[in-house]
């Protein structure tokens, strides 16, 4: 079966006055139809840029090489027309900040209907009723009234629901959710995570969930990719990743997530140092400076992603079951 999204050896570099900075360094991944993949990483991991490349939304000074295939069709380097056929209909995105992603001077109803008019060729009145129905499905109270409101009249959580509705209007094959809950309060976050779960069940589309928060991803993902300094360092089934993390970074990161139950420690677990700035690392393992298991080999040889499908890790000395 053709994977919905197939990325091969993707490299993205940004050119600045001072030179070229690599943000994504040979990333390959696949998302199967109806699969939910969580992409986890911190600042400088490149997780957002990978999907920006898929959507054709890279900044002007970015150079991307490699291949990004959506349902078999190559997106990288495709012209605007080809991209626009796919973007917003079959391949949609829920952006991070609901405050700024909606056009402030247009009513919600118009912005939602516009998507269907443009992609599905519906009439404006048809599109509007479909939009109203979709708002109901994402549990927006009083959907008819909302259609006539402006974005600033809605709260953050409500706006995010509208964005989710917008992403589902044309029955997409893949929805990219870029930190969908980061800008929201924790109680609203819980609702949105619930909504995403329900929506997945109902619509059956594939979901790429990008987040820096492992706990958010835990609730939704079938498979998780961990990115560090522009590379994928671990790719495993969700349960396996949390039970038996193989990469030292994943293991440490899991320890860093503070919990509200269990014993209180005198000090919060943390990782010393900081992630490398984009462009800093060349050959070698990018995590070596902070890794307690690092050896000489780690500082000279770049580890490749290897292992059985479902439990891949890019490490010379992966954590094994002790």
């Amino acid at each position, binding site marked *: 079966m053709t994977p919905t999204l197939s990325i091969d050896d993707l490299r993205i570099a940004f050119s600045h006055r001072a030179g070229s900075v690599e943000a994504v360094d040979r990333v390959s991944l696949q998302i199967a139809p109806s699969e939910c993949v969580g992409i986890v990483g911190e600042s400088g991991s490149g997780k957002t840029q990978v999907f920006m490349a898929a959507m054709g939304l890279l900044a002007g000074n970015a150079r991307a090489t490699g291949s990004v295939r959506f349902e078999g069709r190559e997106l990288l380097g495709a012209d605007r027309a080809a991209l626009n056929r796919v973007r917003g209909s079959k391949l949609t995105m829920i952006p991070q900040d609901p405050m700024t992603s909606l056009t402030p001077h247009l009513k919600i109803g118009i912005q939602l209907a516009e998507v269907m008019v443009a992609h599905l060729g519906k009439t404006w009145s048809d599109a509007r009723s479909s939009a109203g129905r979709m708002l109901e499905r994402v549990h927006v109270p009083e959907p008819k009234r909302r259609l006539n409101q402006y974005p600033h009249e809605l709260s*953050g959580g409500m706006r995010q629901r509208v964005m989710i509705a917008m992403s589902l209007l044309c029955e997409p094959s893949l929805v990219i959710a870029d930190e969908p809950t980061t800008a929201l309060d924790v109680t609203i976050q819980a609702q949105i995570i619930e909504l995403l779960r329900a929506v997945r069940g109902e619509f059956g589309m594939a979901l790429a969930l990008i987040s*820096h928060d492992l706990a958010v991803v835990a609730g939704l993902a079938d498979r998780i990719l961990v990115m560090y300094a522009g590379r994928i360092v671990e790719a495993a089934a969700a*349960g396996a990743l949390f*039970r038996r993390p193989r990469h030292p970074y994943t293991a440490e990161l899991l320890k860093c997530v503070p*919990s509200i139950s269990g014993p209180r*420690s005198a*000090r*919060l677990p943390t990782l010393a140092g*900081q992630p490398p700035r984009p462009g800093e690392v060349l050959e070698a393992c990018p995590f070596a400076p902070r890794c307690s298991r690092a050896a000489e080999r780690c500082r000279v040889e770049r580890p490749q992603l290897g292992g059985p499908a479902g439990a891949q890790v890019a490490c010379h000395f992966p954590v094994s079951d002790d």
Partner: protein
Amino acid sequence: MIEPLLKVRDLCVDFGANAALRGVNFDLAAGEIVGLVGESGSGKSTLARAILRLLQPVRGSVQFLGQDLLQCSGAALRARRRELQIVFQDPLASLNPRMTVGEAIGEPLQIFEPKLTARARQLQVDAMLERVGLASAMAGRYPHEFSGGQCQRVGIARAMILRPKLLICDEVVSSLDMSIQGQIVNLLIDLQREAAMAVLFISHNLAVVRHLSQRVMVIYLGKLVEIAPCDALFAAPKHPYTRALLAAVPQLPSVIAAPAAPAAPAVPVLPAEPIQQARLMASGCAYRDRCPFVLPLCETTEPPLIEVGTGHWAACHRSQETLIPLSFAS
């Protein structure tokens, strides 16, 4: 009884027609670490700024070291600022982009210890930089050359250089990566222990607050709804909002529990958004729109903060009952 370091009484702040703080009361003892938890719009950052008099409250008093900061003259207030410092949320924005970090850290010394020579000041700045985990050679660099975590260390160094009695931390780790948060939190814990200073740690992140605080206060729409010792709050919260907050925090699947896909959550998924401002002005509990345990009494009477245990206060008409969570679909 020893006089508390900070006594806040009936603090009210209005932003135009909106009531951001609606009568906040609490005490803070010297050397104590208190966490303040709330979501956006709760007024937690407003509270920090009101205590520091960075904005003018409509009503209330802030007794710090026996003096009401809201009634002070400008000079007296400035003198008090030596003992009362703050670290802000956005590490880069809180530093003057045109000053080196050394100058930024040294500025409080210039203000309060003008007799110090430049050399003596430099020594103290260097020592402070080292104390927060940065090399003293970095004193000549500008904020934009540092990462978020490093900038936050600079902010802490600047706040600590005069050894204040009370440090307010306003969402200091919220904009940092999870693997770096711990570094800053641990630094604060160390500094607090060394200086025996009081800390008011404001955050929306319950888990972080839990690791740091001795006591925790929960604020909702401008009023404190629960105050409790840390363990008591997390083990047995009495206010429905606190319970909802705790239930809403996403958790990693525990190692022992096997399933990869967690079961349906026990959290009652709250059906509505926070109450509209207009209704807030009327009487009654601000949480009634979202509360699964609401009574007719909650519409008419605002529940006061009453003591429900040792050092445990909650503002709920039903705080004395044992309430079983109802689960309902969204």
